[in-house]
């Protein structure tokens, strides 16, 4: 029997092969047969979670509460130095310099990345902007969000900060950041669930030891991570409580 591992659909596209490499490495280290399933969107992934098909997941902070409180998942680790931050940007030619100057009715471009969208909406609140008085422009990628701004099809965009920082200089020159979040305690994490819980410590040891040999370091590199760092139960509970305050 093999266990099912899945990755939050908002993973950086360049890292797809990295997750397969990681899964192969993990199986060798732990001796556990694990199948990696990449879902195309949050809805299909959540459905698999609801059907109790998932045993291991690299999860978006938005879904962590459901996994812990309804499905009995526990945290293993998070990538060192990585936190989820959001950016509110407009076209460089837009005279607006503060969210408070934005008017109701504006067109908002965003992706379906749930925690980034949530942080973005919170940063728009000081301008009295909410889902009811903005026009939604859902996008598949952050590059699309940028393109909508450049073409004048959207007025404001919500970006994952890392994705914004990664777009080409030529595009960045034509954009302007209004707000960048500095929250630092909201992050993706690797979590282990029913079926594998008895192996939590073994998995944790493997992950934390990855920097110690060359193979492990190579695998981390293909994921774009420096190292894994342990997440204990209370840190996860704290993040869930924090997310809880932000979803209203």
């Amino acid at each position, binding site marked *: 029997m093999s266990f099912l591992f899945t990755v939050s659909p908002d993973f950086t596209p360049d890292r797809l092969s990295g997750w397969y490499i990681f899964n192969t490495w993990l199986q060798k280290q732990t001796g556990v047969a694990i199948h990696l399933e990449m879902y195309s969107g949050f809805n299909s992934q959540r459905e698999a979670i609801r059907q109790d098909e998932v045993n291991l997941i690299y999860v978006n902070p938005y879904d962590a509460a459901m996994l812990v409180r309804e499905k009995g998942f526990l945290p293993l680790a998070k990538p060192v130095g990585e936190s989820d931050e959001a950016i509110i940007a407009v076209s460089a030619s837009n005279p607006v310099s503060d*969210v*408070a100057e934005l008017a109701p009715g504006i067109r908002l471009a965003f992706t379906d990345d749930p925690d980034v969208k949530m942080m973005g909406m919170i940063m728009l*609140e000081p301008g*009295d902007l909410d889902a009811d008085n903005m026009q939604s422009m859902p996008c598949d990628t952050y590059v699309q969000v940028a393109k909508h701004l450049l073409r004048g099809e959207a007025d404001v965009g919500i970006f994952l900060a890392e994705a914004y920082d990664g777009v080409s200089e030529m595009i960045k020159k034509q954009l302007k950041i209004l707000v960048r*979040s500095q*929250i630092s*305690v909201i992050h993706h994490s690797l979590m282990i669930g029913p079926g594998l819980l008895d192996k939590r410590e073994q998995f944790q040891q493997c992950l934390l030891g990855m920097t110690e040999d060359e193979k492990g370091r190579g695998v981390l590199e293909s994921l774009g991570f420096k190292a894994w760092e342990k997440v204990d139960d209370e840190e996860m509970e*704290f993040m869930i*409580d924090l997310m809880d305050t*932000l979803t209203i």
Partner: protein
Amino acid sequence: MINDMNPRDIVGEFQETVLNLYGGMQRKVFYTGIETPYPDGKLIVSTTDPTGIITHVNQAFIDMSGYTEEELIGAPHSILRHPDMPSAAFKDLWDTVKKGEKWQGFVKNLRKDGGYYWVKATVVPNIRKGVVVGYTSVRRKPSRTKVEECMKLYPTLF
């Protein structure tokens, strides 16, 4: 324990009053008309024990309140109580979170230097294995229109 404010910490011209806090505590406070703007993109976070004693604060909390971490940890959360805040707001906060529900509201907070800052606060109970072990409050930047509504409303609640 909560100490009176110290006039030497105050920046600018100030007024003085005595707050009657929970449990019969009194605190002499000094307050000015100087507003510190909410820092863009940040969340101000604190956690208390079940009685409202501060157990954790983040850096933004320290920066905005003007107190050191040592002064904050172990102090009652009313260390930020501003005389312009009606006690009905805090009664509502406590009644709500004690039922296990989320509370959200706009709060004017008092800084160590006598100045103030407005926040939009959300408070949730921290439930661990079915037991309330404390409360967490996360504040975000409020909209100016909401703050102006509160500036009109709150004086009518005394």
